[in-house]
């Protein structure tokens, strides 16, 4: 499973990093998964943070709820970056 969080500008990207919003610990807490299974990549050139973690159920197996992994990003939309500039 991989989620690309793409920021409109580098200002918000760096604020998100400074405020530790998409940290491994936060992602682990939101999704209820083990921190050691989460990879987070910061890509300044395109102001993007990439979050990857293994699927609990393999794609298309009995019990898989999202074959394309298309809707697992939604809880990230509830996070807030403080725009203190």
């Amino acid at each position, binding site marked *: 499973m*991989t989620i*690309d969080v*793409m920021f409109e500008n580098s200002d918000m990207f760096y604020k998100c990093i400074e405020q530790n919003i998409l940290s491994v610990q936060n992602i682990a807490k*939101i*999704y*209820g*998964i083990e921190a050691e299974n989460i*990879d987070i*990549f910061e*890509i300044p*050139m*395109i102001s*993007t943070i*990439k979050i*990857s973690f*293994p699927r*609990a*159920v*393999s*794609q*298309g*197996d*009995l*019990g898989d*709820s*999202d*074959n*394309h992994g298309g*809707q*697992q990003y*939604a*809880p990230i939309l509830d996070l807030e970056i403080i725009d203190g500039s």
Partner: protein
Amino acid sequence: MSGLRVKAIAGNGVLGSGFRESSLLRGMALGPDFIGCDAGSTDPGPYYLGAGRTAFPKVAVKRDLSLLMKAARSAKIPLIIGSAGTAGGRPHVEGLKEITLEIAFENKMSFKLALIDAEQDKSTLTELWNRGKITPISGPGLNYEAIQVSERIVGMMGVDPFVYALDQKADIIIAGRSSDCAIYAALPIMRGIDPAVAWHAAKILECGAAAAETRSSPDCLFAELEKTAFEVEPLSGEMICTPQSVAAHSLYENANPFELIEPDGVLNIAESQYQAVSSRRVRVTNSSFKPKTVKNAKLEGAVFLGYQSVIIGGIRDPMIIGQIDDWTERLRKRLKSRVHDVYGKAPPPYHFNVSIYGKDAVMGNLEPIKKITSHELGLVLEITSESQEISNSIISLARHQALHLPIPEWSGLITGFACRHSPSFLERGKVYKFTDNSLMETKNPLAFFPCRFVNIEDGTEIN
């Protein structure tokens, strides 16, 4: 070699998803050396590999393929199609070959067709496994048991089989399961383009216009490769590529955005530079590629799980919604007991799944929101068993139990479940799962991905 240039058109990201004919024509005017198109993906899930079926409808595949074939044949340049028919197994290559021959017949075309097989025989795989030549990427991998129970296993080819087919003067190549990038990297590498340039350009090309800033609909993409750099631009006048859009596409479908593992080696794009050369064209330099000492191929297998039947329904009563987890548990127990009553001492094994839309059907255990705030819930009940007959029977028992399941708040006979359809259940037929990802050593890739040729003259097969 300073004047070395290879120009490529990508039809789109998946054959059958569509592109504008005007974009293809615009690209043809730029003098391409070849046209490529990916025809497959694991995105639609394991069914297509297991059942030998194609995700996109034949009419849509034929529309795209027909335009690409006509363009390639009139310019006398190769057309390279990889991952035929969604999953790239034998029935998938055969199915796409049939469509190709239909188009050739209707248009009286002449060409040499190469068909590359990616399906791996179980006996060969078992022997490789015994010799330790198959290693897991994730989980326990494709072990001895998984090889035996798989319905079909394909290997993902790199550039070698494509290079071979092009060497043998194939005009149109239809390959089984391929690395999406190998479709586009093969010809440039053959012509002497630096593999780092060829693989990185291929990575951008493989999804067609997805690398454009706003991809309004699937469309063509154009790339021009030089020995140590490449440039890309969308072929629709309404789309543009920016350094950000091209760099962002490198993230797509990869867990690690800096290293892309391919059958032939590892592309590293951590230091790549993206520069706008016009308002819609981007130049990419400074990528690197490390060839593997021994090439390998990812193996994808599909295991048959059983036959499935489903019921779609819903609940509106706030008292049932308030106790939905408990309700589901009681339904499960009652169904078990009914199955016992009906089948006697040795009831058939079955798998019962209840998905509750409005609660956590989309995210399951990953769902952070526990409280239900919806006034209605959508339910999907699934039974999977060894036969369609058994699944139909058990889902029908589940329907009746769900319909009248009592709750303490109501006395008398209630109807607490709204069924969408009559008959209430849908037969889903055979269902499959993927095997764990593994790698197979392919010291000589051509032995694992054999190529055969068919000569077509005026639309007819002549050998």
